[in-house]
């Protein structure tokens, strides 16, 4: 699948996979910043976190790219200690679920270090989490904890949905972001190719939200892989029904550009929220809270929400297929927002979302 991203000033483009963008930014971080190091389970092995760190241990040495024992809390604490004396640690969790073992250090320490000590110390660091989906990931390899981490002041939480988002964000996070950043990457995106700007951005791009597709009829606020699903659905309804969807990639979960989001909802009056996690107490609730705080009347009707079913993730494919919102459901939500339940537009047959991501065939 080759998904084009937003228009960029540069006319030169190239094709780069999500994993390739991660590898480029990790490589550049090590090359540009001698105080940077990468640690995590398997960062120096032959799979290299799904290709995002492959070869870096050989290139930069075991002191800068190294495997760790199974010690999520300890590793994160080690990262904090190193950050406090001027290093820039990058830690990895091959499944976001494993970061829960590090919650004490992330939530009780890293997120509070600067504030709790009155601004005299800080621990800038990048914590990379990979969300699993499909091929039977089950209840403990599939969770997407953006709402969990974004709940805590002091953490910056991002969810890059494209190779371009990685190229835009990671270098500036590593070079100048003052605090800890949790980046939630999605396993389904790793092997996808994206068209990216060939040159480096001329100026830093803020860690914020952006319009992934402009439209006038309905706003879809989406995260991570759901941005791609929204873009596919937007293309479908444009072709089948002439409906123009505005897709907003929330991108920065902890610090979205609310003016951008609200401006779009005011314009369209219709809202679909498409998130990679549960709807309860999550991104969907926060987007609605922001609308309610400003002017509920900007919505012509109740918004639609797409997310995981309110259950732990089942392993069986038949259940997994109905656990996540499919392309079929995404299109239907958009059509219903704009035309009502009697929209009369033929729906795509695609009910298993991962059919569109055939390159991912497990095991993990």
């Amino acid at each position, binding site marked *: 699948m080759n998904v084009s991203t937003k228009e960029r000033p540069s006319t030169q483009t190239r094709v780069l996979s999500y994993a390739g963008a991660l590898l480029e930014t990790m490589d550049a971080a090590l090359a540009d910043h001698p105080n940077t*190091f990468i640690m995590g389970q398997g960062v120096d092995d032959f799979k290299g976190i799904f290709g995002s760190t492959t070869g870096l241990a050989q290139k930069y040495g075991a*002191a*800068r790219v190294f495997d*760790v*024992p199974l*010690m999520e*809390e*300890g*590793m*994160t*604490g*080690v*990262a*904090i*200690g*190193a*950050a*406090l*004396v*001027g*290093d820039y*640690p990058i830690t990895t969790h091959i499944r976001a679920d494993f970061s829960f073992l590090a919650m*004490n*250090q992330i939530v*009780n*320490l890293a997120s509070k*270090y*600067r*504030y*709790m*000590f*009155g*601004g*005299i*110390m800080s621990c800038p660091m990048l914590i990379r989490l990979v969300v699993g989906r499909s091929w039977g990931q089950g209840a403990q390899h599939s969770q997407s904890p953006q709402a969990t981490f974004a709940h805590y*002041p*002091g953490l*910056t939480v991002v969810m890059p949905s494209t190779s371009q988002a990685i190229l835009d964000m990671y270098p500036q996070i590593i070079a100048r*972001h*003052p*605090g800890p950043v949790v980046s939630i990457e999605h396993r389904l995106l790793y092997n996808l190719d994206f068209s990216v700007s060939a040159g480096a951005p001329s100026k830093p791009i803020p860690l914020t939200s952006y319009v992934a597709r402009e439209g006038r009829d309905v706003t879809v606020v989406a995260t991570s892989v759901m941005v791609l699903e929204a873009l596919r659905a937007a293309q479908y309804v444009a072709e089948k029904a002439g409906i123009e969807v505005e897709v907003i990639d929330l991108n920065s979960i902890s610090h979205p550009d609310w003016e951008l989001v609200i401006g779009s909802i005011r314009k369209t009056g219709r809202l679909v929220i498409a998130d990679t996690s549960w709807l309860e107490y999550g991104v969907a609730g926060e987007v609605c809270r922001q609308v309610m705080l400003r002017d509920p009347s900007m919505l012509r009707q109740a918004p639609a929400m797409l997310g995981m079913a309110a259950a732990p993730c089942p392993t069986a494919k038949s259940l997994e297929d109905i656990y996540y919102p499919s392309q079929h459901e995404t299109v239907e939500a958009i059509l219903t927002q704009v035309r009502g339940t009697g929209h009369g537009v033929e729906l795509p047959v695609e009910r298993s979302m991962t059919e569109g991501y055939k390159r991912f065939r497990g095991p993990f």
Partner: protein
Amino acid sequence: MAAGVAVFQAGERSLMDSDERYRRLFRSALMIRLVEERIIELYPSDRIQSPVHLSIGQEAVAVGVCDALNPDDLVFATYRSHGFYIAKGGSLPKMFAELYGRVGGISKGKAGSMHLSAPEVGLMGSSAVVASSIPHAVGAALSFKRRGSSRVAVAVFGDGATEEGVYHESLNFAALMKVPVLFLCEDNGLAVHSFKNARQSYNLLEHAKTFGIECRRVDEGWDMLAIRQATLDALAVVRTGRPFVLEIATGRYKEHVGVGDDFHFGYRSAAEIDRWKARDPLLLDEKLVAELKPEIDREIAAAAEFAENSPFPGRDELLTDII
């Protein structure tokens, strides 16, 4: 007890009076004791609206260890860190202002007693979640090693912290990566109100040895010079790039949190602490206390006055320094 270290007992004071090192350590320990006694006096006035975990009885550990460190070595400590803050050389006025919740405090009043720090003298942030600062010392030590620095990091924790998983993770990683970190266990035998024999099925030193980590226990937790020497001996190992576990037995005179005694609750007897008090130089060396106390009292009074005169943080501080 280490060979060559004088056992302090009442009656031998005159031998010690000429010993500058002993006076330096004694003065620092007395400062901690008198600061905390002042906190006890102040507490009913509600000037300090923050939980306090007093170090009274454990002062010798902080001063013995910190005296053995170089100024640029780092200490990562706990919510019971008034002692380490003072022993490492933190500013007394800033400490009082912090306890008072004033902008003149180290952390503008956002830290309070449980999160003391003084990075300018090497005391990094203290944490109120048991064991959570142990891996921070390991991380700092890892960084020192990669840079070829001769600095070391010290993880200070109580015996209860060794029951937490991250203690084991930290020992394993430190031994594996061969980093210059001193694991310093203040063994006061209590986790809040629970005794060690109800909590631990292992022996701390034997446990450390399974990681190939050298270790030592000091039973004389009142003896500042013995602790200093044991720390120097441990640091000689640590500075060659090997972690070390140093366990020091000590006695917590006061309740876990708060400023009172807790013998009347019946869970422990005063006799358990009396054996520590019987060897406590701050109680026994009345002559040296009398000599040093007036000046220390003046310093404490000035620090408290500084705190009293420092403004409370205003609304502008509420949302600063978050990211």
